[in-house]
């Protein structure tokens, strides 16, 4: 396949391969194989079931992203509130500009003993990094295949390893700034050994036409716990593609929450695999879109072993001509008895031209399970608006209150108190800009 939009990435690979982390080692061979696979498959398009509602091929063809340049010197944070949303939280900060780590801007001091934090290039020779990069889930190949593009071109990323029983003292904040137009490919690796604990906050901001391709590979050991909060508020002509792959050992817990406010086209993919009994995963999120924004949430949870619990809730408010997508799948493997899988998606259409597509899927091969999914789409209830107005609240304010209350149910699931408050504030400000 030698289509135009693929060509940009192939050329970027040819040009940079020697300078990419891991050159000459196993990773170079892995990159080569990934590039071959990508070249073969091309960019995903709507004829693939997993991409039924999001045409990445068309999107990237239109935008034609060249690689983003490495940015030196001072960085001006975008004026948006989201850039500093988490400023009041006591945290370690890693700053990435155009997808590259900038040590000079970051603030990481006194990491507890047993916490290792490196840039991608520094860990690629380590076995744990290799294991994470090479691992495939194969539950939704069409969706996972795009990770090949990242594997071939990943140039940097944050790699966190927390040793057995160690607790990361403060949240680790990864701030990604798109300063110049172009594509960046980032890979984060997270390994929590047994009984370890960590909180990661991730922010993506930018004012330029960027293509952010980010993959986060996670392994959570026995009884370990990871909280993950993500905020995406990039420019309206930016494209965001994020994939999270997490594997949970027995009694591990993952709580992830993603708020999507920005980007012209964004897609968040989550893959969760339970490999030990008693584990729990909460994959939740909210989105508020307007104009011609398009946001796709794709989520696959694989109950491969018995007695695990998963919970998914995505809520969105869609204004203007925006389009929301939810595609989810809960798989319960044979013998994975006592699985508990819940999957909910609710969307509010605030304008005549907004659209929502949902496909919550259950695939169940065991009988003693509790699985349920639900999906609703609709507009604000006229009765509720009337109720508030009858109590003297103006219509605009009534609508605002109702939408905020609607999104609050999801936002409440943010696994960090201060981060939750920050996200709620952002969402309420989002409504300040929208005439409901």
């Amino acid at each position, binding site marked *: 396949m030698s289509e135009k939009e693929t060509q940009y990435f192939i050329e970027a690979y040819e040009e940079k391969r020697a300078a990419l982390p891991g050159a000459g080692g196993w990773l170079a061979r892995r990159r080569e194989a990934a590039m071959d696979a990508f070249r073969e498959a091309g960019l995903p398009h709507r004829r693939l079931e997993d991409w039924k509602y999001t045409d990445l091929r068309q999107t990237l063809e239109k935008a034609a992203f060249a690689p983003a340049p490495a940015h030196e010197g001072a960085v001006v944070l975008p004026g948006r509130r989201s850039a500093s949303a988490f400023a009041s939280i006591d945290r370690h900060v890693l700053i990435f500009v155009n997808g590259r780590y900038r040590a000079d801007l970051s603030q990481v001091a006194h990491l507890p003993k047993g916490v290792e934090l490196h840039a991608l290039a520094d860990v690629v020779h380590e076995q744990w990094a290799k294991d994470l990069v090479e691992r495939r889930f194969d539950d939704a190949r069409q969706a996972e295949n795009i990770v090949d593009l990242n594997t071939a071109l990943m140039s940097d990323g944050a790699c966190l390893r927390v040793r057995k029983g160690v607790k990361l003292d403060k949240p680790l904040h990864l701030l990604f700034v798109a300063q110049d137009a172009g594509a960046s490919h980032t890979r984060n690796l997270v390994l929590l050994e047994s009984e370890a604990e960590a909180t990661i906050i991730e922010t993506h901001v930018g004012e330029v036409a960027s293509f952010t391709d980010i993959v986060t590979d996670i392994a959570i050991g026995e009884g370990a716990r990871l909280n993950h909060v993500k905020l995406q508020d990039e420019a309206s002509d930016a494209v965001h593609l994020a994939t999270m792959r997490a594997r949970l050992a027995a009694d591990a817990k993952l709580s992830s929450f993603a708020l999507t406010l920005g980007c012209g086209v964004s897609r968040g993919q989550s893959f969760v695999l339970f490999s030990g009994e008693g584990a729990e995963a909460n994959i939740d999120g909210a989105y508020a879109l307007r104009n011609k924004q398009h946001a796709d949430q794709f989520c696959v949870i694989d109950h491969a072993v018995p007695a695990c619990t998963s919970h998914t809730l995505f809520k969105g408010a869609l204004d203007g001509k925006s389009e929301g997508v939810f595609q989810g799948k809960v798989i319960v493997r044979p013998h994975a008895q006592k699985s508990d899988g819940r999957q909910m998606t609710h969307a509010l*259409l*605030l304008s005549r031209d907004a*659209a929502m597509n*949902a496909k919550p899927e259950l695939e169940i091969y065991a*009988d003693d399970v509790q699985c*349920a999914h639900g999906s609703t*789409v609709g507009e604000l209830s006229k009765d509720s608006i009337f109720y508030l107005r009858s109590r003297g609240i103006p219509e605009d304010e009534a609508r605002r209150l109702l939408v905020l209350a609607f999104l609050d149910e999801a936002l409440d699931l943010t696994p960090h108190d201060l981060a939750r408050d920050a996200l709620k504030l952002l969402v309420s400000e989002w409504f300040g800009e929208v005439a409901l």
Partner: protein
Amino acid sequence: MAAVKETVETVGEIEKYKYGFFTDIESEKAPIGLTEDTVRFISAKKDEPEWLLKWRLAAFRRWQTMTEPTWAKVTYPPIDFQDAYYYSAPKQTAKLDSLDQVDPKLLETYEKLGIPLTEQKMLAGVAVDAVFDSVSVVTTFKEKLAEAGVIFCPMSEAVRNHPELVKKYLGSVVPTSDNFYATLNSAVFSEGSFVYIPEGVRCPMELSTYFRINEKQTGQFERTLIIADKGSYVSYLEGCTAPQRDENQLHAAVVELIAHDDAEIKYSTVQNWFPGDEEGKGGVYNFVTKRGDCRGANSKISWTQVETGSAITWKYPSCILRGDNSRGEFYSIAISNGRQQVDSGTKMIHLGRNTTSRIISKGISAGRSSNTYRGLVSVHRKAENVRNFTQCDSLLIGDRCSAHTVPYIETKNPTAILEHEATTSKISDDQLFYCMQRGIGEEEAVALIVNGFCRDVLQQLPMEFAVEAQKLVGISLEGSVG
């Protein structure tokens, strides 16, 4: 205890697939395989007008360029479309004047099937069109229907006697290019029922068709077309069986329903094709396209299906809700046992204003079967005030079966209110224990509980069918416990 006794009797009565017999009747077949000549042969056999032959050939040529759909959650060895007969008719082609002239062996077959074919034995008020392999054998109660102005006849007769209606409506809901199997059907369909209910008429009785595949290595491709003109009402039942065979037989039917202003069509199916033996050998491939078009305002189409048979079911009875205030309903029970595979569901396409739809799907899987609900609810931009409610519940019996739910929900209008719910569970030990401690055997208790689980759908069936369906539910699950 009457109900219990009945269940015991039913379960005892039928140990195996009781419709698995084969009737030895001499038949006339088209040469094996599928070529343009086969299409011409069928068309000539039916003495069809030129336009219909052209229509068939166009479909056939299109079919040759198409590939089989693979998106459904079913697996089966590739089908050799050249290794089957596309036309088979009991040899006895002279026009029949009365039932007495029908081959007694055929009548016997239908009797075994429990179809009230002869008028004396008929359940009050059911008009039957029976299709044996590819040919419609007899249509009963014709005169009474004609009095009301209702046309109910085999498709081939409709082509002869009412060409203007057939020409106007055939392929208008399921176009020849619709999908692989519908296109195949368009090329080789040989029989089916045609129903036309004139304006303002409430069809005086339930209409019913029985389909049976008898001949070996044959496919059955019937085409049903039901038109309900303004303000009319019709209830239509369809039942199917096939003999037990080692090989797989293909059944690719197309059903088109058209409801004009204020009309209502109720279409019920009890599908009990041979499901194959316990090891998954044999059985019918049921690849069916069914679609209703609520063309007029205030029209209503309701699908009710009880799917217990077939090795593989691939079937999505759908409603296009074009007319304002029209309503679509889909009630389904899909039971799979042994190694059966079911991929079934519905599509509700909301185009008109104030259109409503309701989907109730109950999937029950036992043995090593797989049961998938796949449905689409789509609301177009101009469809104001759409309301949809979807509920799909799955019940798993045993730990080697599987149940899947794949709903698609697409909304482009904010005034739409769509709700989808799905649950998956097994029969609770409490319920089972409760029944058993009152002296009800395990298998029977399961049948009782399952019947309760299906109640919402069973209630939608016409009375005589509901009784039969209830029994079928019990029988299909035989051997699934213990």
